[in-house]
């Protein structure tokens, strides 16, 4: 029983992480019909942004909650800016080109970030950047304590924070998308950008906003992962990025609740497969799910079948 509970707790916390990243994929797909393959690398930048900020603030010597807050907000700003710039400089000039062009550009941006971060330190940089290929260790932002035990399963303040923050951001996003003017505009743009323009909606600004929002969620996910699994490196975004992409497709790409549910199901199935079967199947399960979804329900759980208009 306690084993089951432990897997359940792990699965939910992993699932919320996938959900946070998957939301970025799905929102960008919603407004641009583009799979932003650089999204996993924005996640990586989020972790490194937090890493550098933590060192700058001297978290190693004196960890504290206010500093944690600064690290989170700072990293969110960094990623938001990065997401904005990627869209503005790489995707927008290609907006009216064949969709494949933008997709390949996304892969290019992904490589640029992954390999750019693996370069040796630039001599003119005041701090250790780029970090190079060796893994770094994300510092402990605040002291870890056990909050309570359920049987033999112990819940730490880290677990509680991760779950709480992830849920907070998802609820916040739901609010933005379904209750604010920006959200209505975003849904309108995702339905038809040309008609959205006729309503007076500044389509480019909404698209920028969508990238910023998605990138902020990716940075939150990265920090929540890094505090409990502190090894970070420039290609750390690859696997979570791919799996979150699977989660988004599973839920129905372009569908916001779908990304959340898809992420949770993926995280849970990964933990249970690793726990009860073989831990080496951990990564295989995500892609097995992808294959099954594509075979039997390509539009995803919540997706609608769309036929190409001629």
């Amino acid at each position, binding site marked *: 029983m306690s084993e089951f509970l432990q897997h359940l707790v792990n699965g939910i916390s992993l699932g919320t992480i996938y959900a946070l990243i998957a939301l970025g994929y799905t929102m960008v797909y919603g407004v641009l019909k583009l799979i932003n393959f650089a999204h996993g690398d924005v996640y990586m930048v989020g972790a490194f942004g937090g890493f550098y900020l933590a060192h700058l603030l001297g978290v190693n010597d004196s960890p504290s909650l206010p500093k944690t807050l600064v690290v989170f907000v700072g990293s969110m700003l960094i990623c938001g800016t990065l997401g904005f710039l990627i869209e503005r400089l790489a995707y927008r000039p290609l907006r009216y080109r064949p969709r494949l062009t933008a997709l390949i550009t996304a892969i290019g941006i992904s490589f640029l970030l992954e390999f750019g971060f693996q370069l040796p330190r630039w001599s003119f940089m005041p701090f250790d950047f780029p970090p190079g290929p060796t893994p770094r260790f994300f510092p402990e932002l605040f002291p870890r304590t056990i909050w309570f035990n359920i049987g033999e399963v112990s819940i730490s303040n880290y677990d509680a924070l991760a779950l709480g923050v992830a849920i907070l951001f998802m609820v916040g996003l739901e609010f933005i998308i379904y209750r604010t003017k920006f959200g209505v505009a975003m849904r309108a743009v995702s*339905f038809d950008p040309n008609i959205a323009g006729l309503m*007076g*909606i500044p389509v480019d600004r909404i698209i920028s906003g969508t990238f910023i929002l998605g990138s902020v969620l990716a940075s939150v996910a990265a920090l929540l992962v890094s505090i409990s699994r502190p090894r970070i490196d420039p290609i750390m975004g690859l696997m979570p990025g791919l799996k979150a992409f699977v989660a988004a497709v599973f839920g129905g790409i372009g569908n916001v609740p779908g990304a959340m549910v898809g992420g949770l199901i993926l995280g849970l199935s990964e933990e249970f497969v690793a726990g009860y079967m073989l831990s080496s199947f951990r990564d295989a399960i995500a892609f097995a799910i992808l294959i099954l979804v594509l075979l039997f329900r390509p539009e995803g759980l919540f997706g609608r079948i769309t036929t190409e208009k001629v």
Partner: protein
Amino acid sequence: MKALLEVQDLDVYYGGIQALRGISLKVPENQIVALIGCNGAGKTTTLRAISGMLKASRGSIRFAGEQIKGLRSHQIVARGMAHAPEGRGIFLNLTVGENLELGAYLRKDRESVAKDLETGYRLFPILFERKSQIAGTLSGGEQQMLSVARALMSRPKLLLLDEPSLGLAPQVVEKIFSVLKDIHKTGITLLLVEQNAHKALRIAHHAYVLETGSVVMQGTGAELLASPEVRKAYLGD
């Protein structure tokens, strides 16, 4: 009479194909102007070029005295032009109420937006009944009413309407046209594209006949209704 909209020598290309060849037209303030013609004559393209959905490669578009050619759609809306596009352009994934609110996207004056929302619902009571419903569940006629009501939410000086009668039952067409007349009475200028030439010419002060991307004839609605060429080509006599 002062022209609210003045289009001169407009050329539009789709890739290598020329869709508009030097279109010129004037829409005087407080009038109803109609564009009629067959499928593919360039009526929809003309409206799209005016509202900034398409780029015109040559020519000038002046709205309320200002050159608006090259502006983006949302900037043109801000200047007081609304466009109820071909195929109604309803956001089928949003509710009826959200669609209407989007029509007022650029307006900050919440109170008068709420008042206009009421006016819209009074114009088309069926929309009020369905305001929390997803717009995709509306019938064609209801979607057309929503399209017109939504375009009015921006408080436009000029309203472009693309085939408001397309695919609708005769009673619904009657209803839409009677509302268009009411809208015109409130001081809004209309530029109307129609395949239903009969109806369009009946309410238009002035009309243009388009053929393969050019204006081939123009006159008052009554003149064109009486013209033998128009009767033969577009009214089925």
